[in-house]
């Protein structure tokens, strides 16, 4: 199971609001209906990503970019398969991706000599010993949970919501992953010393 954290809004699913067959055939009336129903979904996803970056005013243009992308081929939504994912999730992913790309493109490219010295400074960090985890030691789900908890610094509840599982499942999977890592590094001097303290 993936991130099955769907929120119920009470609105009918987008799939039921539009006739996909007619839409894909290029029917103008169906396209208009699709735009009317899916616009708020696409716009919300774009806005949610752009607003924190101070680019809310550009959300309309990015949403338009998404619609242009959706009908760029002869058949609108040619790349969508209702058997694979819900239409609203597909559009949300598409719109979020477009917003991220938009922010990346508009990132300022100041000449390096105009950037204040303090912005270029990097905090001193002790060199880390690189530890190589063999492929297959952890499952993909264990790896993802460790990434969410440590790299993304998510709380257990947040990671559980993202993955659509119970928080206890996150704790349990995390625990099993750490046991595997500890077991693997038993013979490794530094790592073994490091992990031996993490039992408490």
């Amino acid at each position, binding site marked *: 199971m993936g991130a099955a954290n769907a929120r119920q809004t009470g609105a009918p699913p987008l799939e039921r609001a539009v006739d996909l067959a007619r839409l894909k055939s290029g029917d103008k009336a169906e396209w208009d209906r699709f735009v009317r129903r899916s616009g708020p979904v696409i716009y*919300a996803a774009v806005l949610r990503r752009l607003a924190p970056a101070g680019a809310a005013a550009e959300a309309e243009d990015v949403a338009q970019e998404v619609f242009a992308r959706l009908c760029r081929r002869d058949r609108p939504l040619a*790349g969508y398969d209702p058997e694979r994912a819900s239409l609203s999730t597909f559009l949300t992913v598409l719109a979020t991706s477009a917003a991220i790309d938009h922010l990346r493109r508009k990132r300022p490219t100041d000449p390096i000599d105009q950037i204040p010295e303090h912005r270029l400074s990097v905090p001193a960090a002790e060199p880390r010993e690189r530890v190589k985890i063999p492929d297959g030691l952890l499952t993909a789900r264990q790896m993802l949970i460790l990434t969410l908890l440590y790299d993304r610094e998510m709380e257990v509840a947040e990671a559980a919501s993202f993955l659509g599982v119970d928080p206890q499942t996150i704790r349990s999977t995390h625990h099993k992953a750490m046991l595997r890592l500890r077991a693997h590094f038993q013979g490794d001097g530094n790592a073994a010393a490091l992990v031996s303290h993490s039992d408490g």
Partner: protein
Amino acid sequence: MTGSEHDNELWRRFADAQGSAPKPLPPGRGRAGEGNRTDDATASLSAPSPLAGEEDLLLLAAWIDGRLEGAERETVEARLSGDPELLDLAVSASRAKGLPAPWPKRAEARAAALIAPSRPGWRFLAAAAAAVAMVSLGGFEMGRAGSQWVSEESETDLAAELGLVPDNDLMETLL
């Protein structure tokens, strides 16, 4: 150092060792935004859009919907662990899902205009031209007949107006 801090340290070292190099996709699947997941400093306007990999995005949407099982799910989750940008996309999309926002009417009009009303095909145009020609020809014929009728009518009306009464005897003689 607490157990949690040790776990953190171990994981940091692990993450450093793994780097953020994304794992290769299984055969047949292009990576979302192939070629444009550039280093921040090298990202530019010329970079292709991540929307290029719609098939990948559909796969990610399927994962968010919880519709993937087995090897497919593992593939996506392995990718998410190794590709911070893809994970960022998944987290953002997952949070935005199901939260529509009202959008400007003008934006709706712009998007709707992307597909123009269907234009008539050549066959329809030919039929329309033929119909116009037939109507014109029919109108011309009717007009000509109408003119003759109007002429005769006009003559009769004029005679009546002038008080001229047809001389039946003369008509018979002439005939």
